[in-house]
């Protein structure tokens, strides 16, 4: 079965492109920030350089790693889930569930190892660039050498492997479950999901409380706050099918009135497919939550310095912009994961679109349906992403400024929301447009 796994990766490399891309970017980011620990751990490094390196590695490394773990896992879940037909075929050819599990997980591990290997060099270069930027702004002594060592390698490999193989395991378990016991298993799975979601929300709340307890001068203050935003995002994402259904119960009628038959299809579709849509909502909530949290905290930190009357040196300003670049890298990663997942989820729907067209839907009606769906998804994702972001921002702001509501205007929030909406609409509609170019009959009969 492992041999089959290698073969299937080798023969159809295109199908693994999305998986490989997420694992590659994830491994790269984790290794880049964790190599700062390797650099800090070198003998003979001065205390100030060591502090700034391990703080950055610790702050960004911690929530960054967590983000990478969930983002990679959610992308892979969407990818593996789409292989239902192939898994069914294998079962029909006599493969046992255990064999299929080994194959899919073997593939995931194989892709993760390749992705990590490929990511080593770019991560090294990016890490070196980061350290030299620190040197340029005089945060790190010029005699410090960049090091890429065991910490970067081990975290990069383990996070990528764990998230890939873990996601494959979860997805394949669903695909190979014995149909006769599905009802009981579904209930058990729902219970586990609820427990997982509640745990994430509790951890998020705990991290927010921790933030409140930390001294405002502590440089690592941002870490628990960002952690709170990530964990709350995960919690919301787990409950997103319920949240989506609740929202549809309220807005279902107005959507149908406004968007006509396309709205009618969207509402019915989303209600039934709420569980699958959670796979798309996860990266969207993560993106909005993490982007809003980290960007606002960075702004709050800068403004707090200004308010303190401290005259900023050129180095301070450099550090500020460097911090924004670091946050930007994380946000960009979350955004690419969102695009990746949306693309995978939409390109899988050829058959569904074909069915609608054969039932008499014009290509335009299908496009409108996808647009309405994107609108609902964006609204849901942004709403809960914003809430999750606030769970991180508010305690941070309270500690830094002694006020509850940050005074930084809504401009950043509007930008993040606009970006989420743009990315969602462009990716979904672009992918749908491509899918609509295949004759409807082919999409329905090809998989039959």
């Amino acid at each position, binding site marked *: 079965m492992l041999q089959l796994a290698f073969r299937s990766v080798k023969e159809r490399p295109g199908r693994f492109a999305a998986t490989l891309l997420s694992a590659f970017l994830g491994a790269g980011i984790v290794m880049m920030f964790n190599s700062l620990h390797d650099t800090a751990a070198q003998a003979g490094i001065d205390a100030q350089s060591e502090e700034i390196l391990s703080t950055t590695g610790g702050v960004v490394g911690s929530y960054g790693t967590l983000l990478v773990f969930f983002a990679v896992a959610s992308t892979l879940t969407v990818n593996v889930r789409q292989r239902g037909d192939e898994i069914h075929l294998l079962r029909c050819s006599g493969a046992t569930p255990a064999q299929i599990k080994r194959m899919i997980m073997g593939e995931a591990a194989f892709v993760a190892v390749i992705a990590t290997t490929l990511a080593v060099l770019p991560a090294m270069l990016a890490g070196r660039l980061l350290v030299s930027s620190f040197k340029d702004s005089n945060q790190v002594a010029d005699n410090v050498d960049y090091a890429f060592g065991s910490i970067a390698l081990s975290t990069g490999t383990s996070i990528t492997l764990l998230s890939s193989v873990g996601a494959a395991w979860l997805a394949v378990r669903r695909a190979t479950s014995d149909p006769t016991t599905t009802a009981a298993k579904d209930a058990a799975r729902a219970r586990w999901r609820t427990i997982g979601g509640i745990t994430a929300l509790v951890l998020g709340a705990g991290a927010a409380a921790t933030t409140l307890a930390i001294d405002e001068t502590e440089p690592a203050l941002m870490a628990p706050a960002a952690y709170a935003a990530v964990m709350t995002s995960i919690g919301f994402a787990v409950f997103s099918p319920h949240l989506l259904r609740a929202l549809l119960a309220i807005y279902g009628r107005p959507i149908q009135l406004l968007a*006509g*038959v396309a709205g*009618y*299809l969207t509402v*019915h*579709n989303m*209600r*039934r*497919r709420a569980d699958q849509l959670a796979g798309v909502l996860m990266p969207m909530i993560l993106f909005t939550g993490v982007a809003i949290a980290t960007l606002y905290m960075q702004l709050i930190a800068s403004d707090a310095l200004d308010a303190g009357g401290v005259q900023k040196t050129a180095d301070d300003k450099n550090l500020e912009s460097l911090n924004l670049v670091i946050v930007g890298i994380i946000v960009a990663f979350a955004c690419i994961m969102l695009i990746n997942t949306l693309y995978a989820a939409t390109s899988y729907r050829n058959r*569904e679109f074909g*069915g*609608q*067209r*054969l*039932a*008499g*839907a*014009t*290509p*335009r*009606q299908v496009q409108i349906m996808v647009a309405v769906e994107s609108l609902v998804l964006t609204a849901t994702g942004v709403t809960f992403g914003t809430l999750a972001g606030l769970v991180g921002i508010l305690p941070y702001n309270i500690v830094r400024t002694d006020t509850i509501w940050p005074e930084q205007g809504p401009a950043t929030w509007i930008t993040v929301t606009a970006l989420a909406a743009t990315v969602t609409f462009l990716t979904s509609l672009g992918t749908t447009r491509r899918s*609509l170019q295949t*004759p*409807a*009959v082919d999409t*329905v*009969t090809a998989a*039959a």
Partner: protein
Amino acid sequence: MFGRKSGAGAVKSAEALRLVNVTKSYGMSENAVKALDDVSLSLASGSFTAVMGPSGSGKSTLLQCAAGLDRADEGMVLVDGERMSGATEAQLTRFRRDRIGFIFQQYNLLPTLDVVQNTTLPLKLAGRRIDRARAERILGQVGLGDRLHHRPDTLSGGQRQRIAVARALVTDPSVIFADEPTGALDTRSARDVLSLLQETVRFHGATVVMVTHDPVAASYADSVIFLADGKLAGQMTAPTADAVAERLAHLGDPDHDTTPHHTDHHGVPEYANPYESGYRSDESSTNDYRFDDYSVLRMGA
């Protein structure tokens, strides 16, 4: 009973479907395969026709071109006297959804909609008024009166195909195209669905064109059109399963001049068919036939 607004075919022209010199090729210029080679035929309103032929004979292409799912390279298609036109897929879709009903082997129902919603979807998409009572009446007639709010995946294959029949009927189309409608069904459900199709024609004036490779299914039709190598290869009226299987088995034979077939059926539609007087083997379409469907044919019988 199926609620046609007026008597069978009264508002429609007597000719439900006409194909004139329809040609369709696949592939690039050098290794292009002619799936349909200059096919002309005419089907009367209220007829039930089966289209048969071995794999690769062009029967699916015929259905797709006639139904506007694919565009013919040459020739024209008229549905209910109107020429099928449309430069874009949206225009073709609009033409289709007003005049044509579909039944597919794989049902092609939307899993997220229930039985009534699936049935009325073509009306909704076309922006037509939804007569719910009529839709429910049709569903009652196809035997799904007590399943109105079930979702397709909770129903059997036969029941799903009956939803598809109801959906095809609800728009009151000029022609209903059925592509292997019994291909995924067990013998009993297949019989039910075929009888249902027969009823829609006999009692309610619908026009049905069914592509199949099962001689038993074909025997439910009023007449059978045979295709070989993308060309019409004869017809048979009042078919029986045995006669159809026999004819199919010898479709490519070079010396096969006549096959016993019935012509005593009254009121059968006329075919603008070059082989009208009976089957004559075309010299050019000789032995290079692969009857990979053959065992299936016999098993079905």
